[in-house]
């Protein structure tokens, strides 16, 4: 990949991290508020993101739009018959999300915002990913 292309992903990531902080999605308190159903804030953000996502993906698919290099855009479907992994893995993720008050994107945006201790949950998350990789064959999927 060329430098200029990396720069594009860097800038999109920068905008993403900036918005995560400005909209307070990175806030432990906002996640608590969401799970306590005390505010529409997080539901509004995720809900509108999904609406915009659905409309854009439908436009791309129905018009067979190609990417900027002219390659067809294909989205690999997820196998919903593996419902066990989505429920069990999803619940484990949810336990962690509520406990830490941050999911992967916000963990890194918070680190950038100067909360240096976020390196601890980030390293733990990498360890968690590694342990999943070790145990993968013995877990129900």
């Amino acid at each position, binding site marked *: 990949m060329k430098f200029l292309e990396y720069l594009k992903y860097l800038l999109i990531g920068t905008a993403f991290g900036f918005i995560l902080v400005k909209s307070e999605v990175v806030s432990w308190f906002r996640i608590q*508020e969401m799970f306590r159903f005390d505010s529409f804030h997080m539901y509004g953000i995720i809900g509108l993101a999904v609406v915009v996502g659905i409309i854009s993906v439908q436009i791309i698919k129905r018009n067979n739009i190609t990417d900027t290099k002219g390659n067809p855009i294909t989205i690999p479907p997820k196998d919903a018959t593996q419902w066990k992994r989505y429920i069990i893995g999803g619940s484990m993720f949810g336990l962690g999300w509520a406990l830490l008050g941050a999911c*992967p994107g916000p963990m890194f945006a918070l680190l950038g915002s*100067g909360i*240096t201790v976020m390196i601890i949950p980030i390293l733990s998350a990498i360890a968690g990913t590694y342990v999943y990789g070790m145990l993968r064959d013995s877990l129900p999927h």
Partner: protein
Amino acid sequence: MDILSQPMPWYIAGPIIGLTVPVLLLLGGKMFGVSANLRHTCAACNFGNIEFFNYDWKKAGSWNLVFLVGSIIGGFLGGYIFANPEPINLASSTITDLKALGINDFSGMVPTDLISWDVIGTPAGLTVMVLGGFLVGFGARYAGGCTSGHAISGLSDLQLASLVAVIGFFIGGLLMTYLIYPLIL
């Protein structure tokens, strides 16, 4: 410059976050998903030669790792350079409930009662930061995605699997919030 330090309302942030999906697809057919980077990191230093991490992570993930570096920079700009000096405008019922649980610091993005270098050695701090991070990493890979990969990208593509995963996110989140957190604090 004042506007840059203001909080962004949900109806502006939501659509922009949603646009990440088509922008990454159009730029190079990439699927938006942050937690894949945790796997790429494991793949980059695959000590035990684990099969799940044996793939060309540079080819599959370098764009995403660069995106991740960007989100750290974005966090620096939004939360350090242009930090909002005011506390978050939380629902008063949340503040009441959290105060009852023993949270005292409402000044920043995270409560320093639970997330700071000062409390890394306490049972609560250790549980929140170490166990919390571990569950996020383990659970995200087990479920095949996190909030961005399932709740945003997957639902945007109307994937049933992602809906099941998001239901799982809420099962876990509600259990933690209402049953387990009161035991930790």
